[in-house]
């Protein structure tokens, strides 16, 4: 779902000719099989969540447990069908899923698809912003660290990278908020936009839910500025977490490729050190980097939960935590399906790109 999906093919145009390789005859089949593997992944997660959720209790107790006598509670549970045999419920749910019916949330009565759309686009926006920060920070600094390895800048950057990772997102978020919103007053505290902006954007025809896109479309520059201002801190908080990982990843892999003969060969032809790092070593290093970045999406979504809570960013991750507390089976399952699809698809694409690059990669 994030730009990761688009990124690899662009950046790896040099790698695509692998398709022409004779051993790639089975590539189409590999892709197909790898694609089909998305479904077991989703099925496993959905099944897991389905049963786990039902172990934890039902939504009616969650909502009414403090108000209603047990018999009335039980009556409502029976009426809602939550005490039927669990396998019956499971297959019924699978049946619904297959027909594309995700149902209506139990705790706040909304269409799951619509709920996923609303919160999904918020999380998407956050992830994109964070990814931009992560890439802008992680990649150049990673190259710099590789270039100056074992010198002071390298050590400083590595500690910076570890600190990015070691500081819990919510702690970093809190510090950022205190500094830039409360003390300096430069940036808004929380939320995705001011009330007025938000109202302006909702009145838009067919809003995408990605605010900066909507703001851009509306042509309202004040709104755009406001949306941007709101996006900065969450993107930085979440982006830095990933930036630390990217930095290290880029450093490791660029150092690895810098030691390769072909870099030495480039050097022997008089290519400058700068170009050696940024082109000759970086591009081949991109292959493993892309693979790991793909896996990073799961980390990012996990971090998004915390960022969303810290910055009042109404997205999937945070909503999932809320729905979990409410034992809103339908909503939780819906979100899990979506997350599973996102993650599985990302990994699928990353794997395929990896396979395009390197036919030896198997699942």
């Amino acid at each position, binding site marked *: 779902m994030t730009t990761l999906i688009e990124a690899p093919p662009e950046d790896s145009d040099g790698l695509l000719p692998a398709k022409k390789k004779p051993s790639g*005859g089975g590539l189409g089949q590999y892709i197909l099989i790898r694609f089909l593997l998305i479904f077991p992944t989703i099925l496993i997660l959905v099944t897991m969540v389905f049963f786990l959720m039902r172990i934890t209790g039902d939504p009616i107790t969650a909502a009414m447990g403090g108000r209603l006598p047990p018999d009335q509670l039980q009556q409502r549970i029976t009426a809602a069908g939550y005490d039927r045999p669990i396998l019956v419920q499971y297959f019924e749910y699978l049946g619904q899923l297959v027909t594309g019916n995700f149902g209506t949330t139990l705790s706040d009565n909304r269409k799951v698809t619509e709920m996923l759309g609303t919160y999904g686009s918020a999380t998407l926006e956050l992830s994109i912003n964070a990814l931009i920060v992560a890439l802008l920070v992680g990649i150049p600094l990673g190259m710099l660290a590789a270039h100056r390895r074992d010198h002071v800048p390298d050590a400083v950057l590595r500690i910076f990278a570890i600190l990015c990772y070691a500081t819990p997102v919510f702690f970093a978020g809190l510090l950022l908020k205190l500094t830039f919103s409360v003390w300096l007053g430069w940036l808004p505290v929380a939320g995705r936009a001011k009330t007025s902006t938000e109202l302006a954007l909702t009145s838009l025809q067919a809003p995408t839910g990605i605010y900066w896109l909507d703001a851009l479309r509306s042509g309202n520059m004040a709104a755009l500025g406001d949306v941007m201002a709101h996006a900065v801190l969450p993107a930085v908080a979440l982006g830095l977490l990933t930036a630390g990982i990217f930095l290290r990843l880029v450093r490791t892999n660029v150092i690895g490729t810098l030691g390769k003969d072909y870099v030495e060969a480039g050097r022997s032809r008089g290519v400058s050190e700068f170009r050696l790092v940024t082109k000759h070593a970086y591009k081949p290093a*991109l292959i493993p980097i892309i693979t790991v970045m793909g896996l990073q999406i799961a980390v990012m979504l996990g971090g998004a939960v915390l960022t969303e809570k810290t910055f009042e960013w109404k997205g999937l991750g945070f909503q999932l935590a809320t729905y979990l507390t409410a034992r809103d089976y339908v909503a939780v399952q819906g979100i899990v399906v979506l997350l599973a699809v996102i993650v599985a698809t990302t990994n699928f694409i990353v794997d395929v790109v990896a396979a395009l690059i390197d036919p030896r990669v*198997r699942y």
Partner: protein
Amino acid sequence: MTENLDTPSGNGVPGTKTVLGIDHLQVTFATDSGDVHAVKDVSLELKAGEVLAIVGESGSGKTVTAKTILGLLPETATSSGAVLINGTNIISLSPARLRQIRGRDVAMVFQEPSTALNPVFTVGWQIAEGIRAHSGQGGGKRVSAKEAKERAIDALRKVGIPDPEHRVNYYPHQFSGGQKQRVVIAAALALNPGLIVADEPTTALDVTVQAEILELLRDLRGQYGTSIVLITHNMGVVADLADRVVVMYQGDIVEEAPARKLFAEPKQDYTRQLLAAVPHLGRNSASEGLTERRHQGGEVLVEAKDLTIEYPGRLGTPAFKAVDGVSFTLSRGEVFGLVGESGSGKTTIGRAIAGLNRTTGGSLKVLGYEMLDLRERTFKPLRKDIGFVFQDPAASFNPQLTIGECIAEPMVIHTRPSEAQARKRVGELLESVQLPASYAGRYPHELSGGQRQRASLARALSLNPRLLIADEPTSALDVSVQAKVLELFRDIQEEFGFGCLFISHDLAVVDILSTWVGVLYKGKLVEQGIGSQVMGSPQHDYTRRLIASLPVPDPDEQARRREESRALLGL
């Protein structure tokens, strides 16, 4: 090849201009365990159009010297002395000036063509990269991308890549190994440098491909008068190409002489030893004078009939037939030499005999057991009669176990000796491979390569196997070490009398050990016979080509053979 370019003398006769002068070069690396003096005192000179070979065993400082010529030493190195290229001293040059010289005045060709090419850029881009790095330098005009590509195509044409206009957009993996090395050479030639430093340019290649590359290098020198510093440990290559030879030993030059002279009358002991250790096809052959196959009366250990081995294709690709209808027998006491180029299926056969690969067709009987329906449980009792020596001695030992534990492992599994018994037996085995018994307590990484290969032999022998499979047991070793291991191998084989499948890509090595030789080509056994006969009068076309491509360590003989092989290969 193509039309003459703007280069001087075109007749392969060394000129008089000095292209490279090295004067009292010294290179030291700082490491944890103190300084390593990689190059102690090297002085040499190279004239235009001359080919200078630097030989010497592993670690003698050849590569370091080569890298110094281009100023490619890592930060940890300190060097003194002078390296003069066309009069400019490389050692004291600023990085920016150094970059100007690299590629323009001196270029480098690497050992492993597949690693010297960046897999993610087209070859054209990589060649052009060098051209553009120098464009606009020193007031010259900038080279446009299009122009750079034109010149890359020219360079590819020069090295004999067919259809260069089209191939210039290919990625490295779309070329064969030999073509890749041509591309690397093309990249080195792109700016017409007067000097090319080639560090083991053919070591990674098959002999037939090696012959082509050597031909190419000779052409370059002949047509453009390019000087070449050729680093190699293959004396055949030296004999084939070099005008002059420098012998290095532990960072010093021990001898320098014109090639013919060096081979004919080496002055230094070390050089003599080195030359003596080089296996020479037709000399010292195990099957010298034999007229019929020996050991035929003995027990047949391995019998292959129409053996086929396929590797399953992955995810739908058709299976790959690595071994295709091979038939042979191997009797007790016999050494069966299996030769063939890379990928011909040698290892596959060896592994199938040891039960590491499954056979897929025909019949393979090992010690009477039909491998086609291999069951680990029923085959296990036979395993104590089979020994296996791997190519890479380092990798074949568990790094976590001592040499003693590794050698004792087969015994522990099959005969369960007491600890004292095992220790005693390990000691005996070590001694039989001429290692001190005290080495049992060492870890694999604490032994040298040759020692490890001996230990590996000891392990293979620990249960007195009837059958030994040796898969390129010496190809990872230096020539001098290889000579010692081969000698040991021969002695032990005579002493123990096991049947042996000896796999190697080096005809000369096989010839030293085996009486019966099989030649494998693309999975098919194209020829088998008594060693000296196969080598002396090959029947099959491929065998002939193989033997013709093999350079012999003797310049005169090699020159003659070259003419022959030219005729044979239709050049």
